[in-house]
């Protein structure tokens, strides 16, 4: 039941990301719901679950994009690893810490793309990417993220009493 619900959330997020989310684009930039979910996994779940989730979500995101396979797998799994490892050293509740985590994650995610595009794919990246698109992307994620955290917390809270063996060690 738990894993089934996670798959449903993933399908919904990927569908939203690839269809109607563009209606809310700002300057051609939309938030990355998958990134927010990976940070959520890193902060809320055990390390192995978070890294597993990061790898799986990154791999699916790579498959659903026209980019290089492995770029999102790398960034998302490292983000999940980073937050699942360091969450006990930081205060992770509240809008401000979550917002800061999301800004850091977004910058890292964007830089991984930037360097992979420039080195492996030998493609062109507009010069405005670093000082325009990436900051907007980071701030957008940081604004959307806390609300998504609240929704995901509600879903988790709703699922928990419905399962005989809730989370099976998923929580930190």
């Amino acid at each position, binding site marked *: 039941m738990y894993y089934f619900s996670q798959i449903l959330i993933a*399908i*919904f997020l*990927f*569908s*939203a*990301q*690839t*269809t*109607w989310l*563009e*209606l809310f684009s700002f300057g*051609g*930039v*939309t938030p*990355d719901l*998958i990134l927010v979910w990976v940070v959520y996994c890193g902060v809320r779940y055990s390390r192995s679950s978070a*890294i597993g989730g990061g*790898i799986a979500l990154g*791999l*699916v*995101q*790579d*498959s*659903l*994009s*026209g*980019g*290089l*396979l*492995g*770029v*999102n*797998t*790398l960034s998302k*799994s*490292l983000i999940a*690893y980073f937050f699942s*490892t360091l969450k006990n050293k930081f205060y992770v509740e509240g809008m401000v810490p979550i917002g800061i985590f999301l800004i850091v994650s977004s910058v890292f995610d*964007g830089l991984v*793309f930037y360097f*992979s*595009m420039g080195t*492996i*794919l030998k*493609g*062109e*990246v*507009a010069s*405005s*990417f670093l000082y325009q*698109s990436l900051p907007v*992307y980071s701030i957008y994620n940081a604004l959307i993220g806390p609300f998504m955290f609240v929704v995901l917390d509600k879903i988790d809270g709703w699922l928990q009493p419905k399962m005989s063996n809730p989370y099976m060690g998923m929580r930190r």
Partner: protein
Amino acid sequence: MPKKGNKKNIALVSAILLFSLALMTLNVKQEKGTDFLDSVAGFILSPFQNFFTQSIQSVSDSINHYFFLVDVARENDQLKLEVQRLISEKNQLVERLASQKRLAKLMAYDDGWEKKAVVASVIGKDATQWSKVVVINKGTQHGIKDHLAVVTDAGVIGQVIHAGPNTSKVLLIVDGRSAVDALFQDNRISGVVVGMGENECQLKFVPNTADVKVGDSVLSSGLGGIFPKGLIIGKVSQVSKKKQGLFQEITLTPSSDLSRLEEVLVLLF
């Protein structure tokens, strides 16, 4: 001596790096490496993408056509389409005329539009922020394969980079990996239209001596084997000549509105 926890951390990070690099290498070395994953992900997600896209279009249609301007919006849409069609037709005719003038005694003009094409709907966009790729609802079962040109009434939009059974990915001309050989409609000077990952493209390798003006039309040259000759790509929106250097810096606005793609045409040749 490193602690046990540190060793575990190093091992984990190394494993992640190795796995990701292996995937990237596989993808770069073997272009077909990701086909299976792409097809499976596309197969699972395409019904949901279809559902969301159709729902949005229905809601959008309702708002545009019923609540606000019942008939005017519809007529306006039709007129816009008609204008796009006429512009496209005019460009084709101008191009055809120019071509026939040059080649009249050599060969008959081969009109690409008479060849086979498949109409497809855009059902999704790229799952990441940065690649400019759209997903269409037709695949190999409909005759689509990799490296086919994709156009709209207004002009070229991109090429198929992965054809799954029922869905395909189209790399738009604004993506940083896209390059289309092109020429100016008027002066026939050639260049390469390169995407920059944003809403506009750049036209590279146009010599400083060439007379280029804002508003000049740029067409596909037919070189490269993907895009037939004479399809409109876009119009020049900015020209800058540097005192040093051989080439001009030309920015191009694609003729199709790539942020609002709904139906496209895949050219099967």
